[in-house]
């Protein structure tokens, strides 16, 4: 004969698998979605940095004093400069692009890359943006002589055009048409600094990257250049500066739906469980169980289920996106970033636990109201032995969605609802991701800011 110490501790064989499934899904979907959103935004930002430059702000047509004050500012991580000596024209008045040079800092923060060759080292060398060579009908062959007509403002204010013969020493990856230039011409024809200095009245553009801590405070710098130049924020790369900051809203909607559906499902499950065991609790009260003992009995196994399956959901929610990103990075040529913002994860976990506690409070209130007497229910059913329920296994997982059971029907509705919203929002974002990838593979030539 068994002496079973678990008897009064409530080793009830009532099923907790519904609660386990809901908790696992809540945490798994919640964390997956938040990591997915963060990773998506990070990937988007990194890809935009490649296209639109990793600078936070630019000051066009400014002066050296402003450059120096910005470069030495505590908020600024690094600052680069671009000098425009004149404009390259096609000889008929059409402008092909700016002629000038960029310093190394700008080449770095602007993610400006050479497709071939190098930057010019002498006055007769030139590196040209690939798109401009195409425009001029010139091949990418390095070392060839190319004539360029440079138009600039003379010392007396009149427009002067001067023809130069250069040796093509490098081809620069397209960038100027993507950058937020506020109608200023950017350098498409890279010449040596010495040649640029020879041209009268060169214009100075300053580009700056902020330290991560101050990334959102870019507006503070406008006062430094109020009287000198045009201040521009890089809204193409950094969505927080633009009006297109929608991914966070999607994430919030998804989180809200998950937590609401999860809470409703948990309340229904708990209510159902409590209804089934109400007579047992009344009997326990009659036999001398105090209210805290009844509550303990009801929650004891559930707390274990909550802790185990929440932890499993959190672990899978963190690990599975990592695996997906790992897999994507082996398949795709462009890197996809796995990005976890600890604050977001903690916030999500705490929010979901708060929702869980809120859901359990309803059961707690009902448990406090368990009376000492209830409607007696005969428990005799000699032929049946219904309490040995099947354990949830891989081959009967779909029994969770059994439409014949009322409680399971509600559960399946909740699960389907969560899954539908997840798929819906994922679909929207997936569309954006695919479009971004097509952009990078050159299938869509014109890169536009994503909505």
């Amino acid at each position, binding site marked *: *004969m068994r*002496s*079973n110490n678990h*008897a009064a501790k409530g080793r009830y064989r009532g099923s907790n698998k519904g609660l386990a499934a809901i908790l696992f899904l809540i945490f798994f979907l919640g964390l997956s979605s938040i990591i997915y959103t963060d990773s998506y935004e990070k990937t988007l930002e990194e890809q935009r940095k490649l296209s639109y430059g990793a600078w936070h702000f630019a000051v066009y047509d400014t002066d050296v004093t402003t450059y120096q004050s910005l470069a030495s500012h505590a908020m600024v991580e690094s600052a680069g400069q671009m000098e425009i000596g004149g404009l390259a024209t096609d000889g008929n008045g059409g402008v092909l692009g700016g002629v000038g040079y960029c310093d190394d800092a700008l080449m770095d923060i602007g993610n400006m890359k050479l497709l071939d060759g190098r930057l010019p080292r002498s006055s007769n060398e030139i590196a040209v943006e690939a798109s401009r060579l195409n425009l001029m009908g010139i091949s990418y062959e390095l070392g060839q002589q190319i004539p360029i007509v440079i138009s600039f403002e003379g010392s007396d204010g009149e427009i002067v055009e001067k023809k130069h013969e250069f040796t093509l020493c490098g081809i620069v990856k397209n960038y100027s048409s993507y950058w937020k230039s506020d109608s200023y011409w950017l350098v498409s024809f890279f010449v040596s600094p010495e040649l640029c200095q020879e041209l009268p009245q060169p214009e100075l553009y300053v580009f700056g990257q902020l330290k991560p801590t101050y990334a959102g405070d870019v507006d503070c710098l406008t006062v430094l250049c109020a009287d000198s130049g045009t201040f521009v924020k890089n809204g193409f790369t950094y969505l927080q500066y633009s009006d297109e900051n929608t991914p966070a809203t999607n994430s919030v909607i998804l989180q809200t739906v998950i937590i609401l559906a999860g809470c409703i499902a948990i309340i229904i499950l708990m209510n159902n469980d409590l209804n089934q065991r109400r007579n047992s609790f009344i009997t326990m009260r009659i036999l001398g169980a105090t209210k805290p003992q009844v509550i303990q009995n009801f929650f004891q196994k559930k707390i274990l289920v909550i802790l185990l399956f929440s932890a499993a959901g959190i672990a899978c929610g963190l690990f599975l996106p990592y695996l997906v990103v790992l897999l994507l990075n082996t398949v795709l040529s462009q890197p996809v970033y796995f990005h976890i913002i600890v604050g977001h994860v903690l916030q999500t976990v705490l929010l979901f636990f708060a929702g869980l506690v809120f859901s359990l409070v309803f059961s707690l209130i009902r448990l406090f109201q368990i009376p000492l*007497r209830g409607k007696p229910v*005969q*428990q*005799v059913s*000699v032929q049946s032995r219904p309490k040995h329920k099947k354990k949830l296994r891989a081959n009967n997982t779909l029994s969770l969605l059994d439409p014949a059971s009322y409680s399971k029907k509600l559960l399946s509705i909740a699960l389907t609802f969560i899954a539908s919203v997840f798929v819906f929002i994922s679909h929207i974002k997936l569309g954006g991701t695919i479009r971004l990838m097509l952009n990078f593979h050159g299938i869509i030539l014109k890169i536009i800011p994503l909505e």
Partner: protein
Amino acid sequence: MDDILLVSSLSKVFGQIEPKVYALNDLSLSIQSKSFTAIVGRSGSGKTTLLNIIGGLDTPSSGEVRIQGTNLYQLKDTARTVFRRRHIGYVFQFFNLIPELTAYENICLPSYLDHHDPDFSFINQIIQALGLESKMHKYPAELSGGEQQRIAVARALSCKPDILLADEPTGNLDKQSGDELMELLRFSNCFFEQTTVLVTHDLDIARTAERIITLEDGRILSDVCGGKL
């Protein structure tokens, strides 16, 4: 023999406005230790209300109930709950076993609720006396009504209560099972010297008791020895 239970001027009134319904009306009685008492009466005479108030499941409108000298209704709710599990055993018409627990776990439940291990040798003694050895690992749904009620009796006796209260224990059993159960209750009264108070509307069953109290309209109509009813 000493009085184990004293009921004084007990009234239970239902309803706040006239006409009020008196389930119990100024009822007084005493039950001696180790006795076997049957309370009989028609439906609505107040039998179950009296048993519930004696057992601490319901509160009286006035009067007092003393078990082993303790005034039950001067205790706070939690203290009364603890008192109930230590001093009172219950047997119900509908057995009220916990379906999720085996027969043995059901029997041990009151001890575990009182935060101590059961007296296993005593429980085994009860189980043998009730002939339940082979049923211990079965769930209530796998047992017949008679077997379930015997498990309920074993559960009620497992904590060696001062008083065993049985509310229509044979009401849901066939004649044979009912007779067997009454034999069992008589046996526990004799063998374990268990004070027993039985509520029934069946006079044949009541006649097996040493003492029979008849209630009518919340008052004691008669109080006689078993054979004299």
